[in-house]
């Protein structure tokens, strides 16, 4: 019985111990017996990276973090075990970052040129690369979610304060005033648009006029130029003096003509006065005639005289005819 107990207990103990050890190794993905390549990286800060976290190259898991040690100098050395067949980049750096939003970290081995273009990361890489060059890969740590959320929280707080202040300043009255200001601004904008359009048209017209004026000025300038050329030409041939002499002679002629005209004018004035007097008399005569004064007035205004005259003429015509017909009856010419 005792030996049976010993066997059973021994079996259970050995089996349990082996099972537990294998269970832990299997879950931790430890590789027993296979050779591993160790790579060390130096960091100023490793964030929340832990022993056992994944090491990734080009997005593929290539190993695990084996140890994290704090050096007396203040640097943190992270030792990583990698598959020996994996080839590292030519200028490798190690960047620690969160692999998920739930706090798991990973170490990514990448080309120096492919490192995030962040000033802090670049500074960390430069600092860690400068210390003990060649002994450990340069390392940097990206900010974790907590830091990002802290920054986001600060920004949200600032925005909240700004929003509060804005809310205080922006009450209903301010909103109405702002609305009115917007309307006024819209009206002003429309008015400005109209003004600009009008001014634009005026400017176009002015521009056209100016263009025409410039053309005219150009033509005038050409004419002036021509005239100047002629003057120059005339001056050069002595024709100007002749012209001036002719002009002086013409001026004398004009002066004489003016004198004659002045005399003629005086004569005309006298003639006018005489004509006026004649017309006055004529008017007086015509007035008398019209009023029936005098013989002519009576002749004009009294038909009897006309009739008498007409009758007389008829009688005289008859008498003449009678005389012509019987001259001896009326005429007796005696010579002695």
């Amino acid at each position, binding site marked *: 019985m005792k030996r049976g107990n010993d066997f059973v*207990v021994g079996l*259970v*103990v050995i089996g*349990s111990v082996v*099972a*537990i050890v294998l*269970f832990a190794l299997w879950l*931790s993905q430890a590789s027993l017996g296979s050779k591993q390549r160790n790579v060390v990286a130096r960091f100023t800060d490793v964030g929340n990276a832990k022993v*056992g976290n994944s090491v990734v190259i080009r997005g593929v898991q290539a190993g695990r973090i084996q140890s994290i040690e704090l050096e007396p100098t203040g640097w943190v050395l992270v030792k990583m075990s990698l598959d020996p067949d994996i080839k590292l980049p030519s200028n490798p750096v190690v960047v620690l970052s969160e692999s998920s939003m739930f706090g798991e970290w990973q170490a990514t081995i990448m080309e120096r040129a492919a490192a995030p273009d962040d000033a802090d990361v670049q500074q960390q890489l430069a600092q860690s690369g400068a210390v003990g060059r060649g002994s450990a890969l340069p390392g940097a740590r990206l900010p974790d979610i907590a830091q990002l959320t802290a920054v986001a929280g600060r920004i949200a707080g600032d925005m909240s304060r700004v929003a509060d202040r804005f809310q205080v300043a922006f009450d209903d009255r301010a909103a109405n005033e702002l609305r009115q200001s917007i309307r006024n601004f819209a009206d002003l904008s429309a008015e400005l648009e109209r003004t600009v359009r009008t001014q634009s048209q005026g400017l176009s017209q002015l521009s056209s006029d100016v263009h025409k004026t410039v053309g005219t000025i150009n033509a005038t300038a050409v004419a002036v130029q021509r005239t100047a050329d002629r003057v120059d030409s005339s001056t050069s041939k002595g024709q100007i003096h002749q012209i001036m002499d002719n002009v002086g002679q013409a001026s004398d002629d004009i002066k004489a003509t003016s004198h004659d005209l002045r005399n003629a004018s005086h004569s005309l004035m006298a003639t006018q006065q005489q004509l006026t007097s004649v017309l006055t008399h004529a008017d007086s005569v015509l007035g008398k005639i019209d009023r029936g004064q005098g013989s002519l007035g009576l002749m004009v205004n009294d038909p009897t005289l006309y009739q008498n005259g007409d009758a007389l003429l008829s009688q005289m015509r008859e008498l003449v005819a009678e005389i012509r017909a019987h001259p001896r009856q009326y005429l007796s010419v005696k010579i002695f």
Partner: protein
Amino acid sequence: MNVIEATGRWVRFRVEEAGRAGRFLEEAALAFGSVRSWLPNATLQMRRLGVDSLPIGLLIAVFTGIVLALLASYSFTGAVPLYFVGTLVEKTITLELAPVLTGLALAGRVGANIAAELGTMRVTEQVDALETLAYDPDSYLVVPRVVAGTIMFPLIVGVAMIVGLGAGWLASIGLLHLSSDEFLKGARMFFSTFDVEYGLVKAGSFGFAVTLIGCYKGLRARGGAEGVGNAATQAVVYSAVMILVLDAFWAMTWLHGRS
């Protein structure tokens, strides 16, 4: 006046109890040195306390793993990726539930068994007979049980961890339609060998406490069958309380502050 006397009696009783427990612990520690006395009986106790307790420990682990997987799925749906079911099952089983639930179950089975057995020996004066025959009861009765409990509890708990995680794995595949790779990804994501070490050490302390309390209460049994019954009851209650106290102790001293 009666109140003051009652208070005085209660304090004196507690101090005497603590003193007796301290003396018992000292005698057991001294008896640990006589290996020839306790080693022949250790295998038998390991069989009775450990190997024979495996079924109950594994049964608890199976159901714990299944329930944890379903519980995690219920809690995570829509908020957290489902592969975190593996993370939660692994962490909870190894760090807490396997040691504590198995410890509580064994406290009932082992603690009561030891207290009843030793209590019966006490009230039937078998312990006195051993003393008369110059056998040290501590090295002959106590140390083999304490050693067996301290060794076998972690082994039972370790196997319970494996079985619990396996049950959770199978439940995730069969009931939650989670792929095996996803579950393992979650289980391995935050796994650390420390989780297993912590659970096993905690289980060892539970085994030590449960067996020691069972022995103490059994050897302190008085008054026949009723005294044996009381001893068994007290052993279970004190063991359960001590498991929870130790659980908090390890969490505060070893887990807390560890990153």
